[in-house]
């Protein structure tokens, strides 16, 4: 699903964010990306989601070298990725329903089926009864789950999450991680960046550790 070959990223002001990274994430795999802040987790995710381009090396997603594709192809490739952030980035002036249905409208999904799909996605994150509410009236945990519902509504083959539990208390964090495990069981490939070692330790998944822009550990099915 994702393959990185000797990828480095140097920002314009000379800072080396990633150094010579090679890794592969197979279809249907679930992995955590850990490391201290500034280790390069976010940069790595930005390369995969095409928000940034690698300075050297290849980033291959779903068989396409995303370093080489033209800018107007990026939107179509991005529709295959469900992206989740620490801040869910919901549209404040739209209802929960409108927020969650946005990816379907962008892809030109059949209008008659949108309601059904939105309700199914909200049901999955346990917020079915909130569809007509404005996001600002929800708690941060609920907002995060709305963001997740929006990311998974198109059933993307790849789910990328950058510190999805950063703002949440431990119980809520565990719920969110269980959600990701469910999506993984349905068939999505999942990559989650998190520095919450305690939480990661409770889950038995592959763990990639970054330090100073380098991949220092790649452990399979690690369990403490």
């Amino acid at each position, binding site marked *: 699903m994702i393959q990185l070959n000797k990828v480095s990223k140097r920002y314009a002001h000379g800072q080396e964010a990633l150094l010579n990274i090679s890794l592969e994430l197979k279809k249907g795999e679930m992995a955590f990306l850990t490391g201290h802040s500034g280790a390069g987790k976010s940069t790595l995710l930005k390369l995969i989601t095409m928000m940034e381009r690698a300075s050297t090396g290849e980033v291959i997603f779903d068989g396409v070298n995303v370093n080489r594709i033209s800018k107007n192809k990026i939107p179509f490739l991005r529709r*295959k990725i469900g992206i989740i952030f620490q801040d869910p980035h919901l549209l404040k002036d739209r209802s929960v329903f409108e927020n969650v249905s946005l*990816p379907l409208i*962008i892809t030109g999904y*059949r209008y008659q089926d949108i309601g059904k799909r939105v309700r199914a996605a909200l049901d999955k994150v346990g917020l079915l009864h909130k569809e007509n509410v404005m996001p600002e009236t929800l708690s941060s945990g609920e907002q995060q789950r709305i963001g997740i519902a929006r990311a998974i509504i*198109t059933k*993307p083959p790849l789910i990328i999450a950058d510190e999805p539990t950063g703002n949440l208390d431990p119980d809520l964090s565990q719920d969110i991680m269980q959600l990701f495990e469910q999506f993984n069981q349905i068939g999505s490939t999942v990559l989650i960046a998190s520095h919450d070692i305690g939480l990661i330790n409770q889950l038995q998944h592959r763990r990639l550790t970054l330090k100073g822009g380098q991949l220092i550990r790649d452990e399979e099915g690690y369990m403490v």
Partner: protein
Amino acid sequence: MSNKENFTPFGTRRVLTHLQALMTSLGQLSRSPWATLITFAVIGIALSLPMGFSVVLKNVQVVSGSLHDTGQISLYLKSNLDSDTLNQDLNVLRADQGVAGVKYITPEDGLAEFSKQSGYTNILKGLPNNPIPGVIVVQPSPAFKFDWQVQQLYQRIKQLPGVSNAQLDMQWLQRLKAIVAMGHRATTLLLILFAVAVLLLIGNTIRLTTQHYREEIEIIKLLGGTNSFIRRPFLYSGAIYGFSGGIVAWFIVDIALHFLQNPISELSSLYGSQYETVGLGMHSTLLLLIGGTFLGVLAAYLAANRYIRQISFK
């Protein structure tokens, strides 16, 4: 993973995406109704100036067209002209294709009118003989469309045996025509100037709107929205601004014309012509609305395109 059956057929989808973009645009405009209405008004005023000027010009043209366009030629006859030559000349003139009317003023009539107008009745009475020559006033055919045709007639009838001097009285008409031509130039200039103003105005409004929706644009980009998907509602907004501005301009010109109706008909009755004011007309109205809409879309495209391309989620 994508299931083709879940997607609407392309043609219907296209209509739906446009409808959806239109709804988004209307939603954006209605969220700040006062700002939107003020923008409509400003665009309307800007468009109404050149349109109003062109209507005034059209009316001037109609008035000047209703006046005898071709001017007149005064033929001053030789003194002590015998009646045979005079009649011969008059017959030649009446037979001329280029002559619409001939009026002979005898020296006696001329003297009478001159003394009446000047008030020198006594002095003129004291003169041994009448110094005023006979005059033939020739009205050129209204079929003449060009000045040179009148000039030709003038050159031709100047040669008649009884004529000592001829005067072509066209200067004031030529002046009027020159003024009208200048007015046309000025209207074109105004039109270009105000079209640019409207372009900048709508462009700036759209630019501010895109900035206001920056976060939304970023999120849509992140979710895989194409630039054209993001741009489309802004293009509709531009079109709505331009079209509504055109309608406002139409109303302004119409109201102004009603306001001017009375003084204009009074003025035209002073010139001895019965005359109805001419409005914008079907042609100009369509041009105004289509032109306004086009300007709006163009401005929105120029303003939104660059900005949307630049934005990326960071």
